């Protein structure tokens, strides 16, 4: 039998590995596994009742009113994902390109663009709530000031504009992240390749679409995947800016809020159901895992070894 000798080095490594491993097991693996387990039971408050098989899953997917709520929240997540893809990643790419080309003031802007990422989500949320205030908000005051007063809205107070307004706040908050990742990708492109392109064309459009974009593919994989996971786990901003019910009228409801409400209840309804909540959590987890897996493998295939 091979003997496991505890040398000084072995002890040292063990001492370093065990605490984080225990932490991950306790706070990540255990909750996920238990959520899977909870989803198959009927619950009354914190009391576990009978094993009900797939009934909780059936309820959240096919039984009204859960069915409509699920569809509504999912639809909003899809909107958030595509809107952020354009606003956050698209803008991030353009900003990264501008910073990379060392336009005047690039040093200052490199920091300025990333600064909001460092801010706490709570601060960003309250800041934008103030910005969007119908009477005193800087958005409406500015619009009135430049003669566009007819555009002033109660941004967070009406179904048509609430979700979009929160998305803009999110994009402002996080745009520095894809910018940074894209910028790092661009800085990895050898300068002689860029010189070679300049010998063949002076069109920025050709340079971006045919050379820079394909060569930052590894960065795109990272930001696309993370954005996807982030968009379908979205919680903090809509929670603070739109409330737990996704006000007004569910227009800012997303899967994260909907899951929280279902599992833990809310102030007005007070009703809570761990079984349905866990079923939702499991569905969200599986959906994100599968799609993120597909995105990653598909995009990886397109990556180029520089």
């Amino acid at each position, binding site marked *: 039998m091979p003997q496991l000798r505890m040398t000084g080095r072995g002890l040292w490594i063990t001492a370093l590995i065990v605490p984080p491993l225990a932490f991950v097991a306790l706070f990540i693996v255990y909750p996920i596994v238990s959520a899977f387990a909870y989803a198959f039971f009927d619950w009354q408050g914190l009391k576990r009742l009978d094993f009900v098989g797939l009934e909780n899953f059936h309820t959240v997917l096919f039984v009204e009113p859960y069915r409509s709520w699920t569809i509504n929240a999912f639809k909003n997540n899809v909107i958030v994902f595509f809107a952020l893809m354009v606003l956050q990643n698209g803008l991030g790419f353009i900003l990264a390109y501008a910073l990379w080309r060392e336009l005047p003031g690039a040093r200052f802007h490199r920091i300025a663009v990333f600064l909001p990422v460092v801010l706490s989500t709570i601060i960003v949320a309250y800041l934008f709530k103030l910005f969007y205030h119908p009477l005193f908000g800087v958005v409406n005051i500015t619009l009135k000031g430049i003669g566009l007063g007819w555009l002033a809205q109660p941004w967070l107070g009406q179904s048509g504009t609430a979700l979009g307004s929160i998305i803009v706040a999110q994009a402002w908050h996080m745009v520095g992240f894809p910018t940074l990742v894209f910028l790092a990708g661009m800085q990895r492109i*050898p300068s*002689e*390749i860029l*010189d*070679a392109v*300049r*010998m*063949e*064309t*002076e*069109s920025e459009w*050709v340079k971006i679409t*045919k*050379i820079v974009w*394909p*060569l930052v*593919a590894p960065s795109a994989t990272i930001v696309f995947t993370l954005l996807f996971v982030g968009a379908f786990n979205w919680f903090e901003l809509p929670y603070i800016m739109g409330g737990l019910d996704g006000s007004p009228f569910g227009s800012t409801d997303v899967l994260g809020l909907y899951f929280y409400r279902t599992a833990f209840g809310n102030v007005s309804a007070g009703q809570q159901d761990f079984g349905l909540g866990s079923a939702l959590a499991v569905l969200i987890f599986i959906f994100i895992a599968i799609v993120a897996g597909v995105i990653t493998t598909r995009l990886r295939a397109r990556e*180029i*070894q*520089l």
Partner: protein
Amino acid sequence: MARLSLRGIKKRFKTTDVLHGIDLEIGDREFVVFVGPSGCGKSTLLRLIAGLDPISDGDFFLNDQRMNDVPPSRRGIAMVFQSYALYPHMDVYENMAFGARLMGLTKDEVEKRIADAARMLRLDALLKRKPRELSGGQRQRVAIGRALVRKPDVFLLDEPLSNLDAALRSDVRLEIAKLHRDIGGTMIYVTHDQVEAMTLADKIVVMNAGRIEQVGSPRELYETPANTFVATFIGSPRMTLVDVARDGDRLGVANGGSVATGALPEAKNLKLGLRPDAVKLHRGQSGEGLSATVVYTEYLGDNAYVYARLADGTLLSARTTPNDLFAPDEAVTVTVEPGSAHYFSAEDGRRLTP
């Protein structure tokens, strides 16, 4: 047709002057090599001609047309980069087609040009490969092919052989020489390797510290170097420079004997330039030459080089036959073949003629 004319070209990076006024004429179909030590400004000059960096001062004409403000892609110039700079996400065919398509050529024309270039450079079998699947020599040929399909007036090559191993280097050197004969364009080639310069060039431009030291054919540079810099830069092993004082028709080294070298220039103090084949070594110390001590001998098979230290500390290199080897610390006497020495001013290093 491509004639290049550089007039008073200067380049400044922030406050540092890199090129101090370059005047140079390059004729049609010429193969010109810029050669010089690292940091002499030869690559900078090439980038100014390409248009990759702006010219700070002076004028650059291509066929009598001022090019200073013309973007690189419209100068009719193609460049082969040191690292090849192939587009890693495109296969060989696409790498060559990219620039050709941007020139607005028809699909058939692009295909024909690539087929021609591929045949000339033996790339036919590699057209579907990605750059990372190619060897260094193959990448080099693709980079040249990419320049060829654009049919430029001028080819610029920036140290194209420096990433190849020694064996491949001489092969590719021959191919480049052949290519120049076949396509007949004007080529400007940058290197720090004087052997490449000597073997390839119609005209060599020797640069040092942002200035042109001399322009001429390989033979001119070797036989009549304009100054001590060119004299020691061209030729291997390098020319030995000895500080000598004139004593009648002999030249003397301080405490180290004197030597007769034939007709002498006027000046009293000179720098005597001796190529390895201009001197003869004799065993033992006699009065009829410069006394020296052997440091070591390089045996090269067909001949040998002996390095010996003169009385004033100068290291002298001499070519001998492989049958005539010298042991370290052996005392020798150096004589000079009449008429084969070079003379330079002791003050500014310029060439002096007898």
